[in-house]
C-alpha cells in the first residue's frame, strides 16, 4: 500500500488537526470527544444541524461545516459510525435555542448511535429531530433488510437544509425540507477499483482490470452486479435507468443532477459522465435545473462514481442557490 499516511491509527486525528489550522476562519475542532463545529456556533435562534458518520468520505461531513450548511459534524473511525458522546457534545455546542436536527445516513451503526445521542440530548432538555437519508436504489428496500443506504442525497440534503435553517425556520420545517430532499432523491454508484481501508492495508475486494461493479455503496460493500467494463454512455445509462424508474422521474421534471467521484477518479472523467447524463436526461425531456460535479462523498481511494438526481421545485432551487461557506462547498458569498 502506497499512502500518505504516517500511522493508520493517527489518520483521523491528524486530518482533524489539519482542518482546524487550514480552515480556522470557518470551523473549530473539539477533541475527546471529536467533533468539528462552526466557528461562530451556537447561532442564536437558528436550528443547529448536526451530521456525522465514519471517516473516509471526505469532504463529507466535516468539510460541510460552516455558514449555510452544517453547524457540526462528528467523525468516527474510518468507515465506523461515531459515538453518542460525540453527538451529544456537538448537539449541545450548536443548540442556539431553536433545537437541533440530526441528519443520519441509513446504516444500523449510525442509526443506533444517533438514537442514543438524541435520547441523551432530550434528557438534557434539547429539542432534537432526526432525518434518515436512504437514497441508494442499489439496495432492494424490503422489510427483510436494514433498508436502503444513505449516500449521495446526503450532501445535497445538508446543503439545502442548511439554507432553510439559515432563514431561521423552525425545527419542524427544517426537518421537513430535509425529508423532502431525501424523498425526492435517488442515487446509484459504480466502482472501477476497490478502496483500501488504512487499518487493513489491502484492498477490500479484488476487481479484475477489465471489470466493474455496479451498485456499490461507500464502504467497499459489494454491489448489485459485477460485469465487464462498458462504454461511458452504457455505464451512465445503467446508473440512470434504475434511478429514473424508481422515483419515477418524468418528462417535464426539473432536477438537481449530481455526478460524484468516489475518491480515485479524476474530475475530467466525471465531466465525461456528466456529458452522457445530460444527453440521457435531455432525451427524456428532464431538465437539469442545477448540477454539482466533483468528489464530495467519497469512499477513500475507490475509483468510480455515483449519480444522484433530486426532483426540484422553485423553493428547493432557491435554497440550493443560497450562500454557503464551508471548506468543501462555497458560493454566493
Amino acid at each position: 500500500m502506497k499512502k500518505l499516511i504516517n500511522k493508520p491509527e493517527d489518520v483521523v486525528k491528524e486530518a482533524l488537526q489539519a482542518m482546524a489550522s487550514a480552515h480556522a476562519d470557518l470551523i473549530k475542532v473539539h477533541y475527546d470527544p471529536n467533533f468539528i463545529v462552526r466557528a461562530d456556533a451556537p447561532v442564536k435562534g437558528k436550528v443547529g444541524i448536526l451530521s456525522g458518520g465514519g471517516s473516509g468520505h471526505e469532504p463529507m461531513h466535516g468539510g460541510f461545516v460552516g455558514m449555510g450548511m452544517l453547524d457540526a459534524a462528528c467523525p468516527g473511525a474510518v468507515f465506523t459510525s461515531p459515538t453518542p458522546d460525540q453527538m451529544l457534545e456537538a448537539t449541545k455546542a450548536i443548540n442556539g435555542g431553536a433545537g437541533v436536527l440530526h441528519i443520519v445516513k441509513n446504516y444500523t451503526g449510525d442509526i443506533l448511535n444517533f438514537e442514543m445521542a438524541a435520547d441523551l440530548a432530550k434528557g438534557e432538555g434539547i429539542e432534537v429531530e432526526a432525518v434518515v437519508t436512504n437514497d441508494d436504489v442499489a439496495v432492494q428496500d424490503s422489510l427483510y433488510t436494514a433498508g436502503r443506504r444513505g449516500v449521495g442525497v446526503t450532501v445535497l440534503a445538508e446543503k439545502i437544509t442548511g439554507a432553510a435553517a439559515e432563514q431561521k425556520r423552525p425545527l419542524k420545517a427544517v426537518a421537513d425540507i430535509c425529508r423532502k430532499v431525501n424523498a425526492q432523491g435517488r442515487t446509484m454508484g459504480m466502482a472501477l477499483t476497490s478502496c483500501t481501508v488504512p487499518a487493513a492495508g489491502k484492498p477490500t475486494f479484488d476487481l479484475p482490470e477489465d471489470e466493474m461493479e455496479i451498485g456499490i455503496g461507500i464502504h467497499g460493500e459489494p454491489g448489485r452486479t459485477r460485469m465487464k467494463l462498458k462504454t461511458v454512455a452504457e455505464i451512465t445509462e445503467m446508473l440512470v435507468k434504475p434511478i429514473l424508474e424508481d422515483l419515477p422521474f418524468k418528462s417535464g421534471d426539473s432536477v438537481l443532477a449530481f455526478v460524484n467521484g468516489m475518491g480515485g477518479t479524476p474530475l475530467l472523467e466525471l465531466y465525461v459522465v456528466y456529458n452522457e447524463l445530460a444527453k440521457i436526461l435531455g432525451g427524456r425531456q428532464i431538465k437539469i435545473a442545477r448540477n454539482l460535479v466533483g468528489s464530495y462523498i467519497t469512499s477513500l481511494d475507490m475509483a468510480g462514481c455515483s449519480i444522484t438526481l433530486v426532483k426540484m421545485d422553485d423553493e428547493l432551487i432557491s435554497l440550493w442557490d443560497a450562500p454557503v461557506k464551508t471548506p468543501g462547498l462555497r458560493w454566493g458569498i
Partner: protein
Amino acid sequence: MTVRRDDVIAWIQAYADVIAENKARLTQLDSDIGDGDHGTNMDRGFQAVKAKVPEFADKDIGAVLKTVGMTLVSTVGGASGPLYGTFFLQAGSATAGKMELSLNDWIAALQAGVDGIIMRGKANLGDKTMVDALLPALQALKESASSGAGLPASLKASAAACEQGMLATVPLVARKGRASYLGERSAGHQDPGATSSHMLLQAAAESWSMLAD
C-alpha cells in the same frame, strides 16, 4: 453460592483478553458478511474498559456494569457499541446497589441486558444477529435454574445454548445490520456479533466455574 463484585470484574477482564486474542477472527467473520470491523470495534471498547477498572473496582456491581456500558457506548461505535453498551447499562440497572449476585440476580441481569439489545436493535430471533445467541442462552439459564441446578452448572448450560445459537446463525439469511445488504449471500457464514456474544457468556461460565455450588 454467589458471584461477588470482584468476580464480575474478573469476568470483564477475562472477556477483554478473549476479545484481544480473537480480534482478527471476529474481523474476518465481519469481512465475510459485513464491513470487517467487528473485532477492531470490540477490542477498542474493551481495552478502554480494562483501562477504567481502577475507577470502578470499589463500586457495587450495578455501578461496575453501568460504567462498562457507558465506556462501550463512547468508544466502540458501529452497531455493536450501542447494542453491547445498552446490554451492560440495563444489566447494571437490574443489579443496582448489589455487592453479590445469586443465580436469580444473574438471570435478572441477563434478562434486562438482552431485553435492552432487542429494544435498541429491534432484531427478532432468526435475523442472524447476536440476539440468536443470547436468547437461547437466557432461556437455558432459566430452565437450568428452575430444574434446581446451581450457579456454575446453570452458567455452563447457558454458555452451551449460546454456542448452539451462534452455530445456528450459519445457514441464516441476515435481516438486520450490514449483512442484510447481501441478501441470500449472507447464508453460509457465522454472524460476528453472535460469536462475540458467545465469547461473553463462555467467559462468564469459565471465570465463575470455580465458585462452588
